[in-house]
């Protein structure tokens, strides 16, 4: 397909907004991408700066910039934290629209459909952002609309959908973290938290060696409850874990309706455990309001109390 030239038809309207960004950096405290790579270039602030650079002519459009812009999980924590009230992800979406169809367009974190696709259209039906469609016999992802929630990845029966660069949120990475933690002497449970419901602070410092007991649980950020696969939720139990807690948004708060899917998965698995004569409380779900750090900790403490009362899965 012929590529169109790069024009800033959508981005132009944000010119004064880019001035209003004071580049304080408060946005990147919460950004899962920035926290994973720890490069300035992956922060929302830097992406805003790149957009400004292109509009001002100081920076030439490039695939490198496009890759940064198409890499965003739309958790929107940056927008919520912005001290200047800049709707950061809306700006990114318009910038994506300008990049779409040009020679620079890149996948970033948007979902990609592989050759294994059987065109069952399940992903088209479940996509909460109407980003997937069936055109000329193939599934097409609208990279401007795709918010990388990953719900399609879990839905595909052929495992044909991937998010190529997942910044530590992909199944393989998280499974590795689960196994490594549960190998530890005190490792008992895994808590999956979405980036919105769980308020993780910056958490980038490496703590000094401690003589205190290691924590009994590990919090893993999976971005959205909707990304968790059923088999993924069983991984901790298969690795001798005592239990799994899923934290997601309250009803109506999730941008991707991922909490509905997470609830469905957890309910299914709890029923499954019951049929196997295993206490269903080993898998629980809690809905945490944005920023409610203490509520989240209380939920974990209650969960751990129950898990400790149940003891190990294999006595």
């Amino acid at each position, binding site marked *: 397909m012929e590529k169109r030239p790069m024009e800033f038809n959508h981005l132009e309207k944000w010119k004064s907004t880019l*001035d*209003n960004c004071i*580049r304080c950096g408060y946005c990147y405290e919460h950004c899962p991408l920035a926290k994973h790579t720890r490069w300035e270039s992956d922060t929302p602030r830097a992406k805003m700066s790149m957009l400004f650079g292109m509009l001002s002519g*100081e*920076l030439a459009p*490039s695939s490198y910039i496009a890759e940064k812009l198409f890499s965003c999980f739309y958790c929107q924590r940056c927008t919520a934290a912005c001290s*200047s009230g800049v709707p950061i992800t809306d700006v990114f979406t318009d910038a994506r629209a300008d990049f779409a169809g040009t020679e620079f367009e890149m996948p970033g974190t948007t979902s990609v459909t592989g050759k294994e696709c059987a065109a069952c259209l399940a992903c088209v039906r479940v996509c909460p952002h109407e980003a997937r469609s069936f055109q000329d016999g193939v599934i097409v992802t609208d990279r401007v609309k795709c918010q990388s929630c990953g719900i399609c990845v879990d839905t595909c029966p052929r495992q044909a959908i991937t998010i190529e660069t997942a910044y530590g949120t992909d199944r393989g990475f998280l499974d590795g973290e689960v196994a490594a933690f549960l190998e530890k002497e005190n490792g008992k449970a895994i808590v999956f938290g979405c980036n919105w419901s769980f308020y993780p602070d910056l958490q*980038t*410092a490496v*703590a000094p060696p401690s003589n205190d007991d290691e924590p009994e649980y590990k919090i893993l950020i999976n971005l959205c409850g909707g990304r968790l696969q059923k088999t993924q939720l069983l991984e901790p139990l298969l690795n001798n874990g005592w239990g799994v807690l899923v934290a997601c948004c309250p009803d109506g708060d999730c941008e991707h309706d991922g909490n509905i899917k997470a609830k469905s998965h957890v309910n299914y698995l709890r029923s499954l455990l019951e049929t196997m004569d295993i206490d269903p409380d080993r898998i629980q779900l809690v809905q945490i309001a944005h920023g409610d750090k203490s509520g989240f900790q209380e939920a974990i403490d209650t969960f751990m109390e129950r898990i400790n009362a149940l003891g190990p899965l294999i006595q």
Partner: protein
Amino acid sequence: MANIDLPRLKEIVGEENVKSDPADLYVYGSDSSVHHASTDAVVRPKNTEQVQQIMRWANEHRVPVISRGGGSAMCGQTVPVQGGITLDMKRMNRILEINPPDVYCRVEPGVVDDDLNSALKPFGVFYPPTPASSRIATIGGEIGNNASGVRSVKYGATRDSVLGMKVVLANGDLVTLGTRTRVEATGYQLHKLIVGSEGTLGVVVEATLGFVPIPKFRCLGMANFDRLEDAGGAIASIMAGGVSPSMLELMDNVAIKAVNKTMDLGIPDVAAILLYEADGMGKEAVDHEINLMKTLCEQHNGTGIKSSYDPKERTKIFMGRKKLFPALSKFSDTLSSTSLADDMAVPYSKMAETAAKIHEVAKRNNIIMTAYGHCGSGCMHTKILMDPTRQDQWDSARKAVDEIYEYVRSVHGTTSAEHGIGISKASAFQHEKANSLTLMANVKRAFDPNNILNPGKLMQAPENWVTATDLRYMID
């Protein structure tokens, strides 16, 4: 553009820790200031040895090196005006030791302030300088700028908490400065010199920091004033009144209007508000201090006085001050909140007069400015709200900045209280320190004879900050 040997840098820190795409070089050319200048390479060292190797190479080839933490500097401190290598220090992020019996901790420079305080909390202690940006500000950056925050009135600035440090010099040599003890009598305390040197004397690779107990009781009060002079009188009386506030904050009417315009917090539209706080391990002592501050406010016609120990109520009382920063940014669609004349310190007795002077200068120059700050430590902050796309607004801003700092000097104040000098306040700094600039240049030469460490800042920055670098705005 400096001639950078990327393969050599990659050899030192690993290929994955060097960036050289134009977009990377561009974004590392900004901080929270009005300035911009692209860097030539970004390098992330992991340990002291790597920093030493980088410095040896840079010194040999006369390439500038700018160390950078969270990138939240407000005066252009990390903007690489002469290009060179930007050292992103965030990989050196280990808290090396927390030593409660000896009341110190050792950290690498990339540790974020809030992370350190989270780690200290279980020991019942905290690291007090804590600027407003503590969520992203690194200890290294705080050392470079001698950062402080709302509680500096009682607990001091970064310099007061730094006991010692390890520093890589321009030639790659490693020196250990200061001690791990609370006191150190004589000799040149060079670690104190490094604090506030904005990366111009060396690269801090480890810091030994003191900490203090978390107070059991904390009470926050608030008083309204119909006249700015009365609020100023209350500030001076409190600071001379045998009381030790843990916070004393001023908000002027422009600040109050800005908050009220953008959010409904029910703040009275008065000339000024004072927020005062006392803390301590005994409630009786905190009660005494709060009551004394309340009486002093009343003596200066303070009204609507209230106070609370309850954390939720305290948060509510402080909300107007907390929301001021975003409120200024959202003040108008056509005006941007710029970090100019962003801080200064004046004697307590001049706080109200300084606020009034800021208003007068702003009006005369057709810009909007507010006055707020940690008046308990004599610190006054402001922002210039202006249309950054208009050249005449920059001319006005420059004139306003000059006038304000001329006034500050006339009342024996100082150019920067806690944000630093960088580029945008360098002209005022050079006027203030006129008779010690040569001495400072000699000190700089002793540490860095080839002038490779963050050149073009402090006494080296040009008089006209508007043209010192590209501005980060598109001017029509």
